[in-house]
């Protein structure tokens, strides 16, 4: 094990996959010499050259579509959309093309494309640079969706994503790039659809996504001080979703909190709620709590931004309300 930054984990995964398979290449805005807005591709242009680390014009629809076409014809592109907010411009290519053409062609097309992007608030970037839109993609059959919360998961899941023959939305978090964490030495991958129980506990289950996993662990720590044992689960991929692990936990605790930064309404927390309600209704002793982004655009000023985005305090409060 060695400790590295999340952005390094992303970079290492891309690098190893590019070394392993020459069909893998990268395209996106300023990912080359500039190294990407969050420096997650730093050094790759120097190592692999401009043919395999391709800076593009400022055209998200073309970036995504070009990746789809390349993926259909024998390559394995990793296309970066700088902010998940800008996927709005590439939605047709991601949703109507990448997600569907394999199926619509009667299984002829394989579209092994990874759309790497990042989401989240917390940098006073205002409402057009702070969204968490994973639920949109989870809604669309034909896309897998990964949301790594740690450097170890970022690396292992990204390598899996690159090797997957289906389109993958790989969603990083802008405030995680400069977090550090343990990463196994040597080659490893993490399968999709296996949740991680980040902390075991028997009183309340907290299912958290992306950066909220860190907040959930912080909350669990604090609650442990008061003798409250929180189980923290990170699904890591929401499509496919490891609902079994979540259900097993709820069967143990009888209490469920879901935590994500995305807007509450129609966020992925609702889907977890529905699946738990379908599978484990009788185990639930208390109503669901959603500790999620408020149903508001994210405001610029830090004090208001903090208000709309949930934090560890909110998780602590929700857990206590369930006891």
């Amino acid at each position, binding site marked *: 094990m060695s400790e590295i930054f999340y952005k390094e984990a992303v970079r290492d995964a891309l690098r190893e996959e590019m070394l392993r398979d020459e069909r893998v*290449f990268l395209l996106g805005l300023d990912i080359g010499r500039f190294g990407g807005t969050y420096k997650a591709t730093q050094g790759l242009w120097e190592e692999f050259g401009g*043919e395999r680390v*391709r800076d*593009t*014009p400022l*055209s*998200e*629809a*073309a*970036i*995504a*579509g*070009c*990746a*789809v*076409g*390349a*993926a*259909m*014809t*024998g*390559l394995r*592109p990793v296309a970066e959309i700088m902010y998940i907010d800008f996927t709005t411009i590439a939605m*047709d*290519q991601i949703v*109507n*093309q990448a*997600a569907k*053409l*394999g*199926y*619509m*062609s*009667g*299984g*002829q*097309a*394989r579209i092994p494309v990874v759309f790497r992007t990042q989401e989240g608030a917390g940098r006073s970037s205002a409402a057009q640079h702070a969204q968490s839109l994973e639920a949109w993609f989870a809604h669309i*059959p*034909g*896309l*897998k969706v990964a949301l790594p919360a740690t450097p170890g998961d970022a690396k292992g899941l990204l390598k899996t994503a690159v090797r997957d*023959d*289906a*389109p993958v939305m790989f969603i990083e978090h802008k405030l995680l790039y400069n977090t550090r964490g343990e990463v196994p030495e040597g080659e490893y991958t993490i399968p999709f659809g296996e949740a991680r129980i980040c902390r075991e506990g028997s009183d309340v289950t907290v299912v958290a996504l992306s950066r909220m996993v860190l907040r959930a662990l912080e909350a669990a720590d604090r609650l442990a001080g008061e003798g409250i044992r929180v189980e923290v689960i990170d699904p890591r991929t929401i*499509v496919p979703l490891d609902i079994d692990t979540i259900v097993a936990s709820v069967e143990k605790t009888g209490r469920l909190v879901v935590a994500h930064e995305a807007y509450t309404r129609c966020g992925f927390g609702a889907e977890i709620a529905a699946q738990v309600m379908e599978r484990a209704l009788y185990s639930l002793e208390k109503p669901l709590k959603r500790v999620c982004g408020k149903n508001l655009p994210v405001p610029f000023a830090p004090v208001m931004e903090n208000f709309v985005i949930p934090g560890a305090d909110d998780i602590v409060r929700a857990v206590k309300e369930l006891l």
Partner: protein
Amino acid sequence: MPEAPPLVAAERAAHPLPADLLKGLHRTMLRIRRFEERAVELFLTQELPGFLHSYLGQEASAAGVCAALRRDDYITSTHRGHGHVIAKGLQLDRMMAELYGRTTGYCKGKGGSMHIADFSRGILGANGIVGGGIPIAVGAALSAKMRRSGQVVATFFGDGASSQGAFHEAANLASCWTLPILFVCENNQYAVSTHCGAQMRIPDVALRGASYGFPGIKVDGNDPVAVYLVTSDAVERARAGGGPTLIETKTYKWLGHYVGDPGAYRPKEEVAGWKANDPLPRYERYLIERGVMGEAEIEAVRGEVHAEVEAAVEFARSSPLPRPEDALEDFYA
């Protein structure tokens, strides 16, 4: 207002083309014509589900373009795509079966009329989203270039599609990377009910090549030889690393937007004028004049094509319907 370069039909004499090629163009046009006529009939008698966008009247465009392509070259097509894929070499039976939604169709009934694909023939799929195939084609061209396969891509789209942002982004990207791609705009004068004059304030989509720094050429889209010649030049350039070309084929769709649309928004004389300019008899006259084919040979080809289309209908009708649960197959995510 600047004009795009003139029609090239007049240049024909300077390029004597092999008889095989000229005959092939003819057969392709006939196959498209007959397939489409039959499909319209079948649709109107409600044998075919969904809806249908007929390629009738535009046959020369697809035939000319695809004759200039290699078998392993790629195309992307549109909602009005039967002509493109026939010209690129598809079998009429499996196509018809797809229109019928049968398991023997190219997409096993999952795609239908608007989505015929055959990757083994370089057909990366038709597209229900106007303009949606253009960036995909650019990706295929990038792939061809990176794999050094020598393949070229032709992406078909309509006059209406040239108003889509996807066209602009894709054309610019292809230019920046000097990709082996042909942007083939089939200007059939209308996007649904909207005349191209209300869609843009320039006479030719071809003029837009200049925005990206590559040639934009307009050509008589009802003249298969003219289309072939223009395309061949562009293909040669693309294969040699010279980058993209925009080709605008000026043509007309005889029926309305979809089968069943009376197309009442079009002046009667306009429709009549274009029908008088039917690419097929015009080309047959040319073949006869040039001594490439005689009446009898033409008639024989017609008979073969008719029989082929009828066999295709038979094949489709007698093919199995999918089972409901077949919907669960071919899904990988």
